[in-house]
């Protein structure tokens, strides 16, 4: 079933926090595309543009003490959870002041201090990890929960299915959030997913499966609030499928595949009409929560923070050679 937004009262604070974090992601990603084009960092980067409402709506429904894990499209989830833009950007630049001291890069941001257990370059690989964080909550009788973001492609991985089964059997406080952005690189989920909807698979695991408009931050927030309540009260996991769309190509450096036939330009244009930022701003302005000028000011502030982050990243040194052998283990081990 599609989750329709209910006319509940969402506080202005939550709405404006979501707007701020969505703008932070959008400006961050636009800047990443710009500086990648200028050759300022190496490797891959997977823009989250178009999908911002999913992580932001979900994280707005969680506490700082809750945990998340994510995937290779890894900038949006941490920013949604409250990560520091400068440390995130410095990581993408491979610098010592990055979240992972330059050892993780774009696909592997993590900030354990605000519950971000890390993004995984292997799709679905972080799903069991998030499930384990929820297991820890249950075994210790604590009331934190965990959530994991994964894609339509990952939804076909065994690790994903095993985790959902395990979480349901043990009634773990975990939320499985499938960001169905329609394509695993170039392959449509319609060609790879046996069910009509990925959320339908929840039935097999005896948990609620909720299909949500992933362009609508408020819908994501409300669906997640329900899943969080369920998790925190010991009723177990929920599968949320957020129908969304990747506006950019799978990864920077792969722009050439846009010329291929896996999706039409017209389809992209159609989805761009439902830009998650436009939808949220329209709601905020139309409901009289804030003025367009206030929304613009939030955008400007986010943009300034991103500019600051880039300067921070550019000025941060590369890791020293002495870093090479550090962090393999919790204490120094002899170099083999």
């Amino acid at each position, binding site marked *: 079933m599609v989750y329709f937004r209910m006319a509940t009262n969402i506080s202005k604070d939550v709405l404006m926090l979501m707007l701020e974090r969505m703008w932070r992601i959008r400006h961050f990603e636009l800047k990443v595309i710009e500086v990648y084009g200028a050759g300022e960092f190496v490797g891959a980067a997977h823009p989250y543009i178009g999908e911002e409402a999913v992580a932001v709506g979900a994280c707005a429904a969680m506490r700082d003490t809750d*945990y998340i*894990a994510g995937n290779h499209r890894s900038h949006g989830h941490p920013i949604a959870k409250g990560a520091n833009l400068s440390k995130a950007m410095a990581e993408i630049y491979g610098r010592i002041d*990055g*979240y*992972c*001291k*330059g*050892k*993780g890069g774009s696909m*592997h941001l*993590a*900030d*354990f201090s605000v519950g971000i*257990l*890390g993004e*995984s*370059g*292997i799709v679905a*690989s*972080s*799903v*069991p*990890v*998030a*499930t*384990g*964080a*929820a*297991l*820890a*909550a249950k*075994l*210790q009788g604590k009331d*934190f929960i*965990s959530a994991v973001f994964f894609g339509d492609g990952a939804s076909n991985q*065994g*690790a994903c299915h*095993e*985790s959902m*089964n*395990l979480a349901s*059997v*043990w009634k773990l406080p975990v939320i499985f959030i499938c960001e169905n952005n329609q394509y695993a690189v170039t392959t449509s989920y319609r060609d790879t997913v046996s069910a009509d909807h990925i959320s339908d698979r929840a039935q097999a695991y005896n948990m609620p499966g909720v299909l949500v408009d992933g362009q609508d931050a408020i819908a994501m927030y409300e669906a997640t609030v329900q899943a969080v309540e369920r998790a925190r009260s010991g009723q177990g996991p929920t599968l949320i499928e957020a129908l969304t769309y990747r506006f950019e190509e799978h990864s920077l450096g792969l722009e050439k595949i846009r010329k291929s036939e896996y999706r039409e330009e017209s389809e992209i244009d159609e989805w761009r009409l439902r830009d998650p930022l436009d939808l949220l701003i329209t709601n905020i302005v139309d409901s009289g929560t804030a003025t367009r000028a206030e929304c613009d000011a939030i955008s400007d502030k986010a943009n300034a923070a991103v500019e600051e982050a880039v300067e921070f990243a550019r000025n941060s040194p590369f890791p020293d050679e002495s870093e090479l052998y*550090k*962090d*393999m*283990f*919790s*204490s120094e*081990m*002899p170099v*083999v």
Partner: protein
Amino acid sequence: MAEKLFMQALSMGISEEMRADPRVFFMGEDVRASVYGAAAGLHDEFGDNRVLNTPLSEAGFFGAAVGAAAVGMRPIVETLTSFMWVGMDQLVSQAAKMRYMFGGQATLPVVYRAVMYYGGGSAAHHSDRSYPVFMNIGGLKIVVPGTPADAKGLMKTAIRDDDPVIMFEDGTLLGTRGEVPDDPDFTVPFGVANVLRPGTDVTLVAIAGSVPHAVAAAEVLAKEGVSVEVIDPRTLVPLDKETILNSVGKTGRLVVADPAAKVCSAASEIMSIVGEEAFWDLQAPMQKVASKQVHIPFSPALEPLVYPTRDSIVEAIKKTLD
């Protein structure tokens, strides 16, 4: 101090640590019934919340152990080496790499107990001795106890360690007996080899199930007037290179006995280190006594041909003395 079975020693180590630290919990397939033995009594003593039967779902619970460890628990996961392949991505992409890839943010005190059943007609799908694979990956501490006392002491160190550890428990040793300290403070440190028998003519490094064969080979050769120094490294990551190199410096000869398959075995790595660092100490070519590079055949006529034995070790030692 009392004589215990290797299996009982493992069990003692686990239950002592579970008593000492409420963050330690135990999970795996059929562990409440202790089908494989070393979890005997755990469920009765510690209850449902600390002893968990999992679904047959290695990717799921190997990874769940990583997540639980990342947020402060200390899981012990029981599995068999041959089932590790099923959950391999969680061991490699998460358990092994998480700390380094996230710049040291993740602390993962998780122990995977990998029981190696081989030598008893279990055929290719249940007879893996896979520790060299994990040595190559990095980020995992690799423990290979060869005696009951080490089984207990290394298990306790593994549970107290803040890094992911794989305890490779050799099925051919589970029924062996030895003196095991009762003292709950008894531990065996990682990275410290055990010289089981001092000697002057040949250095014999023996891993896991090869240890009793190596000791027996040394006894045979002692009667022929050859003095063999038998070293059990006990942990392969970290590896106590110094003890091995010092011994080779004294004897000038090296034989390594390793139940893993010969190619890229633990023996290969040890011999490579000695070749790089102590070549000029060697008076004869080094000898590797590892398993034949074949899958484990079922037939009792074939399987015993695969593994190192007392006699194949004796033969290899004699080659170094020719």
